[in-house]
């Protein structure tokens, strides 16, 4: 179980980082999304893996830490909002700069103060 989760996080992170290093906005956004998935999983396991346990003390034999689950929820909401924002920004950049390269490659005379 630990190995499986670790491998999943590792694969998601490495794919995310690879895509982040691309030059165009769409792969970068995909990379960011993969990275946040990896991060969310990582936060989740920071409370240790206790399969089949409840988050409430006294219900079963043991219990699993509820706090990381709350943290993951917060992180998911925030990363969702941020992804939506950066998506719109990337579309706007595509419209304003004429291409989807992160550096935009704008001409000098286009720069307005």
């Amino acid at each position: 179980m630990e190995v499986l989760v670790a491998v999943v996080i590792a694969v998601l992170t490495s794919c995310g980082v690879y895509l982040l290093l691309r030059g165009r906005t769409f792969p970068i956004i995909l990379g960011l999304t993969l990275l946040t998935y990896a991060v969310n999983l990582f936060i989740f396991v920071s409370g240790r893996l206790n399969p089949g346990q409840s988050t409430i003390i006294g219900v079963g034999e043991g219990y699993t830490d509820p706090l990381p689950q709350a943290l993951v929820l917060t992180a998911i909401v925030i990363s969702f909002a941020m992804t939506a924002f950066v998506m719109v920004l990337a579309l706007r950049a595509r419209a304003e700069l004429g291409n989807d390269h992160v550096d935009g490659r704008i001409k000098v005379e286009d720069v307005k103060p």
Partner: protein
Amino acid sequence: MNHLIIAPVLLPLLTAILLLLGTGRPLRVQRSISFLSIIAQLGVATALLASAAGSTITVYALGNWAPPFGIVLVLDRLSALMVFVTVVLAFFSLWYAVRGNDKPADSLHSVLHFLLMGVNGAFLTGDLFNLFVFFEVLLISSYTLLLHGGGAARIKSGLHYVLLNLVGSSLFLIAAALLYGLTGTLNMADMANKVAQTTAEEAPLMNAAALLLLVVFGLKAAMVPLYFWLPRAYASASAPVAAMFCIMTKIGVYSIIRMYTLVFGDTGGAVANLAEPWLWPLSLITLGFGVAGALAARELRLQIAYLVVVSVGTMLAGIALNTEQALSATMYYLIHSTWVCSALFLLADIIVRQRGATSDRIITGPALRQPVKLGALFFIAAAAVIGMPPLSGFIGKVMLMQAATTDERTFWLWFMLLAAGFVTITALSRSGSTIFWRTENRVAKVDKADRGALLAVITMLALSLVLSFGGNAVVAYTDALAQQLKNPDIYTQAVLSHQAIPGVHHE
């Protein structure tokens, strides 16, 4: 319980919501709501500063959950000072904005208050994950503010800024999750106690988490090699926003001070002071890159943005020295550089408007409409940034140099600070003489600068004089602040001994 401590978070939040609801109302109404709110916040921040000036640390348990379980807001000398500096800065940038520099005003005022909420919250919180949440609040506001006004240059630098900070947020979460996994707590005071008991077996992971946090805060603070987003972003932002952004790098600096004195400071056991060997060389390199950028910049606002990098380098060097005296000097310098840099951004905007199509490029252009007035102000602001007596930059630098007279690092700090001062003089005299003296024989057809906006800049620069002539009181406060920082036990005890109010039940 003293509820005043949460006012710096709630007041801007309510104002921002009110402003959002009032979208489409006349500009006059929006401006008055925004400005009245910032005056109220100024009152609150002053009251908090006065209450923190004594030796008490006020702890506010949200939802009455006693630490270490709930989220706490903690008001110590450091957080009170940071909130005060922020609100004063916001006051002036709003003052400048309401003088006709806020179009389209609908978005600017409400988002600026959301930013204030995030910044004040980040300074006040005593919980690591809550710090992350407030970071996100201030970041998403800053993304919007940076794009305020539109245009290709803003979109381009904004995209870089947003993408970098999103990666930074992911790293922050990884570090926070690692620390939670290791210590089982997110409360900074409780974490400090747990970190002090780190075993040799846990130390490598703890090291990784702590240094990952340094990367995140270094990105916010614009530390080498993570500062590349800053100059373009600041140079392309609209003037009130650029002025307000002067606090953004200080949030990184604040977080570094907070985490690396409280949690990973002298009392950190196996991981004590682990950021210091990294901070020291990086701060001096930041300083060097900053002055090189200022010297090479071909636009006035870009040059000022590089001066922000210089100030960050100076502050990080102070933190890396890691003595009480150096921390006190750092805090004094922080107040000075925040206010003076933002005054420079506002002044640059006024200057740029009078140069017509030449804009802020440092080349021969039309003569200014008010060369004497603006020239004098530019001279004073430049002198303050460089660190000429009798202005506050001089005192800040002298304090920092005095703090570094004890070990082998003295030479490097003195050399870098003095050389940086010299190069900054060269850079600013180049831009100043080109803009004010080497002009064409005509005046651009523009209006005179708005009196109110000019007065905002003059008052901000006067603050630099207040900082130096009222220096005794300021230094007494920063000394006490540094003393509190170097004794993290006071903080941890104040937080962990806080009791929930009896008789208030959780539903």
